[in-house]
Every structure is written in structure tokens, then in C-alpha cells.
């Protein structure tokens, strides 16, 4: 499966619940099986993205942190 990112969401600086709300809206714009990348600075987003993926069935394929920016790669269900 290709790892090409279909869409990137810049959520840096946003606080709860906006990173998740905007991801839920943004993922509608990609097709099933495609990848979206979300960049956030809210430390709470680590737990939130894991929980959100679990509850919605979208797959969290990659997550990491670089210089205070959290990066999540999600494959749409």
C-alpha cells in the first residue's frame, strides 16, 4: 500500500476540541483507504487522536513528535 499523503491538516496552535473536530471534518474530503496527516501542538492530542481513531475505526498508522509538533498519519476507514 502506498504511503502517499492525500491531505495535510495544519492544527498547530489549536486547543481541544478543535484538532479532533477539524480532523473529523477534514477526513471527509479524502477517499476510503487514503492517508491524511494531522499536525498539532496540543499535547492532549496524543491521547485524543488515539481515542478518536479507536472509536471511529480509522487507522492510526503513524505518530510521532518533532520539536513540540505532534504528527499523526491516519488511514481513512
Amino acid at each position, binding site marked *: 500500500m502506498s504511503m502517499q499523503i492525500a491531505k495535510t491538516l495544519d492544527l498547530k496552535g489549536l486547543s481541544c476540541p*478543535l484538532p479532533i473536530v477539524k480532523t473529523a471534518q477534514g477526513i471527509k474530503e479524502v477517499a476510503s483507504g487514503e492517508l491524511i496527516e494531522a499536525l498539532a501542538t496540543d499535547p492532549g492530542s496524543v491521547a485524543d487522536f488515539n481515542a478518536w481513531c479507536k472509536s471511529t475505526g480509522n487507522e492510526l498508522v503513524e505518530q510521532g513528535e518533532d520539536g513540540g509538533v505532534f504528527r499523526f498519519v491516519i488511514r481513512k476507514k
Partner: protein
Amino acid sequence: MTVAVEEATLEVPAHEHDEHPRHKKLVIIAWSGELDKVWPQMILATTGAAMGMETTIFFTFWGLFSLVKNEKHITGDNWMQKMVAMMDRPGMEHLKLGKMNFVGAGPAMMKKLAKEHNVASPGELLQMAVDMGVKLVPCQMTMDLLGLKREDMIEGLGEPAGATAMLMESQDAITLFI
């Protein structure tokens, strides 16, 4: 005589617990009209919708005041209802804090802090909730009690309902009273 008891299989595969939440519905009973409670009402409603939960907010008592148009000063038909609106101006932009209100200085400070920290205001979150399909249900009885009419209130509300309809809705839902 012996009765064969079938061995109960109570164990549910772990992954089923992990992957699927038991509730796919969220009901928030929005009772308070205080800024520091309306905020979590809106945060939880938008998050529920973002998680794919069928989300309903039932607005009752002071909670209804957040649905009154901001430009509306006085609501109600008789002097008592008007008094209530006068002492506690309705509208999402005019909510007071439950503590540290300081005649409006508290809410102003809170809004300034929220802006600096990129926290969406309750009004912005309410609009997002509407856009995401959250059902907003005003309580008919409190509307009558406070003399609130549909034209006093913002667009996008569902049909007013009562306690029975709400409890039916919450039977298979996570229900929060805020």
C-alpha cells in the same frame, strides 16, 4: 434429575472492546446557562459529533438562554418573565461565569485568555455543532415558563420537546447533565 447448564461464555474478545465503543449516541442535558458550563456542553457536543456519535443537546432552564439571539435584550410576556431576562441577559455572548464573575470582568478575561490560547468560543462551537449535525432540542416547558418564543431564538433548532422524549433518546446513549 440433573439439569445441564450450558457453560456461559461471558468473555468478549478483547479487540471487540477496544475497537467499538458501546455507545454510539450522546445526549447532553444542558441545564446551566453559565459560561463555564456552557463551554463544556459545546466542547463535548462537537467532540461527540466528531467521534461519529449521534449527538443531541436538550436545552432546559438556564441552558435555554444560550439559544436566545445575542441582540435580544428582554424576553417574556409578563413582568416576571421580563424581570428574569433583565437580571440575567440571555444570549451566548452575554453569559456569566459560575464563579469569579466580577460584574462581567471575569468572562471578559476568560474570553481574552481563550483567544490567546486558540480555544474556540462557545458561540463558535455551537455553530460547528450545528454544521456537524448535532440536534439542538429546546425544552418546551421551560420555553413556556420563561416566555421564550421561537423567534427569540437562533436558527437551526429542532422541534421543542419534553422530558419523555429526552429520556427515550437517552436510553441507549451516554447522557450528561451539565
